[in-house]
């Protein structure tokens, strides 16, 4: 019995280590002005180079651990955002980038805007700014990973 418990513990720690050291991220723009999106793209370019932290931005939500959301959620994009979130395998994290994703920003009250991202899907980390600097986005992702590491993401 004792050995089995130990083995489980080791497995959980190994899974957490693996998951927080090379997470793949998927990006979705749910009605953003593009500002945050180009800054997210800038994080993977040579000056900022997010990949040195093991984070890779790639296309498919089915391969992703982190969903990076930008922009207020529009009525047309709402269902797509939900679908992408549901397509991601667990454990999964959501990073809301930019003022609009956090609160709706300047687009509050527009007729086609549902509102902030956490009104649609649960959000784990927020990066404020209009748009946030690439450094801030990297910091947000790393803080998210620290948090995940501390809490453990075995399941």
């Amino acid at each position, binding site marked *: 019995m004792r050995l089995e418990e130990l083995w489980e513990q080791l497995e959980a720690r190994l899974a957490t280590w693996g998951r927080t050291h090379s997470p793949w991220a998927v990006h979705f723009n749910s009605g953003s002005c593009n500002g945050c999106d180009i800054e997210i793209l800038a994080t993977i370019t040579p000056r900022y180079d997010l990949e040195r932290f093991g984070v890779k931005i790639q296309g498919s939500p089915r391969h992703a651990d982190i969903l990076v959301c930008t922009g207020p959620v*529009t*009525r*047309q994009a709402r269902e797509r955002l939900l679908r992408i979130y549901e397509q991601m395998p667990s454990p999964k994290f959501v990073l809301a980038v930019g003022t609009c994703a956090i609160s709706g920003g300047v687009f509050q009250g527009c*007729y*086609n805007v549902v509102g902030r991202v956490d009104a649609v899907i649960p959000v784990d980390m927020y990066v404020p700014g209009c748009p946030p600097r690439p450094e801030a986005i990297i910091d947000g992702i790393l803080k998210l990973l620290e948090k995940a590491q501390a809490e453990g993401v075995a399941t």
Partner: protein
Amino acid sequence: MTALEQAQGLLAAWAQETRTPEAGRLDVVIAPEKLVAATTALFDARWGYLAGITGLDAPKSGQIEVLYHFCAGAYVLTLRIALAREKPSIASICSVIPAASMFERELAEMFGVAVVGTPDPSRLFLPDDWQDGVYPLRKDFAEEASHAE
């Protein structure tokens, strides 16, 4: 002869009123049924290109005004057409200028102006679950009405 004088000459047969609101601009008021003929005259003379269609809602006068902006270099020619706010309808100019399709569909869904004969009347900007018959750029638009029951 400047480009605007030329345009004024081309449209003389249909112009109900001609105004020059700013330097380099000419507004020509025409009747709704003359739109296609006027557009064809401009197109045949290769006068500029269609830069956009603007709708203006004026509930006080009970009208929706539709503005067809044509640009040629620095000059802007605007065909102004007033429609009744109840059941507004206008002919499509896509047979003359195919690129107008997008603008006409925007006009139709934002102002509820029926564009007769536009090749693709489907929804352009608004979400799939938007309530039919609710037009966001009309002055009396209320957001609650746009949500389907």
